[in-house]
């Protein structure tokens, strides 16, 4: 099943990726070529095979419910594109 241009635009929107007009045809072509590769999977019989999520079948480890990290807001905000009064600045969301 080949992706159409509108589907590529929808995927780009879901991924919040801005594509230029010029990028869309080549992106569509390449994605279809990759999906062609991936579709080779459908020929494999996987009936009754349990999916493998973690190579060692480990489950998530739990830790004690204790505060172990210090507040590092200043260090983290020092590398942000725009901050003010300890807040991250973005364009106005509510009109």
């Amino acid at each position, binding site marked *: 099943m080949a*992706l159409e241009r509108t589907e*590529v635009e929808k*995927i*780009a*929107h*879901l*991924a*919040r*990726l*801005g*594509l*230029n007009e010029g*990028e869309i045809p080549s*992106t569509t072509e*390449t*994605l279809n*070529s*990759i*999906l*062609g*590769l*991936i*579709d*080779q*999977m*459908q020929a*494999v019989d*996987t009936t009754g*095979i*349990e*999916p*493998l*999520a*973690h*190579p*060692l079948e*480990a489950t*998530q*480890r739990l*830790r004690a419910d204790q505060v172990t990290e210090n507040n*590092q807001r200043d*260090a*983290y905000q*020092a*590398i*942000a*594109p*725009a901050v003010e009064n300890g807040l*991250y600045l*973005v*364009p*106005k*969301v509510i009109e």
Partner: protein
Amino acid sequence: MHHMTLAEIARGLADKQFSAEELTRSLLARIQQLDPQLNSFITVTADQAMSQAKAADARRASGESGALLGAPIGHKDLFCTQGVLTSCGSKILTGFKAPYNATVVEKLAAAGAVTLGKLNMDEFAMGSANESSHYGPVKNPWDLTRVPGGSSGGSAAAVAARLLPAATGTDTGGSIRQPAALTNLTGIKPTYGRVSRWGMIAYASSLDQGGPLARTAEDCALMLHAMAGFDAKDSTCVDQPVDDYLAALSQPLAGLRIGLPKEYFGAGLDARIGEKVMAVVEALKKLGASVKEISLPNMQHAIPAYYVIAPAEASSNLSRFDGVRFGYRCENPVNLEDLYKRSRGEGFGAEVKRRIMVGTYALSAGYYDAYYIKAQQIRRLIKNDFVAAFNDVDVILGPTTPNLAWKLGEKNSDPVAAYLEDIYTITANLAGIPGLSMPAGFVDGLPVGVQLLGNYFQEGRLLNVAHQYQQVTDWHTHAPSGF
């Protein structure tokens, strides 16, 4: 001084033949002189290196010892280094000076290693040629018109060109082993969970694993010994003691059972590489190993499954790069959605965008079972192949790559063709087993690598086989001319 291995450097420092400061100064000069030909460094941390070297000398003067105390190394630029640009080869991390150190960085620093800089890589570790870096392609020191492999291409080129004796790398589908093979190095991807991923910028979290690239198996053992171990900060790190890799090196190979998977020697393999691989097999037989043919019947399905699982995990991991909290932000966003879309659209390169989109599609409503679940089922079939094989053999041996290092630009127009280059390495990541690549000779002046795969936590055995091979051969000592 630049031809010395880590082990030789350790002896030289212990015998006071030179100081860590002298060694660091000499290598920094060499990097300045030669790296413009290679582009293997993104950042050279000269001042920090000099102060680390002086500190290492002071620790030695006060009676401390240690194989890495004063040893110069470099880090792939996806390991977070506090206060130093950590770019992951991407424009989107422009100006990102990490606020903390990766566990691997901390551990190597604690062992006294001196960091000379941050090494170039494919953007977000997505690539097999080191051509997708925002900081430009890396050249292979064996032939400057060819790729060094990827994604740890800067690490490989720097160590192969004797700018560094060893470097860190990461391997999600072959990104340590393949560049090691194409540049005549030894590199090991440990068992999933053996090395902490904390502070390693994530590509595909269930596949990513850090490891060393060096010129000898012995040096890889020294590096891995310092890098491996449990870390409570990485929820997938394995809480199991680290083997004594150095002690394992000297074990004789008598009785070693080697499996040769017939699928590794079929169509697609450059026959000249196949001959080099069989020569390694003969050498190991002389050391007492026995050999039998085995089968890994699901190997052919590994690449399609990988190109679902890795992009799916990447699309989720890379959603954190949003232009708000760190890194690149587009000019004059008109609203929040425009900020996200243009920061990401302008900040990510073409290959990263492709993989995010493949992953987004595979995880989108209605496709999850057909793609992600199917890929994870195939992943289990691949693991089962290895589990069955390791009932009969101790290590699996084959070529690391189907082809020699290719020309810069040669595979840029067809991403799928480049993906197929990882056919022999990707299965180890899907199964989570360790894999090592070691030098096995040359074809047309270009290095050939042989891959050894082992059962879970058999890093010591792989390093042992490679070390014993390196005691009876000298391929690993060959240096590229001009370096």
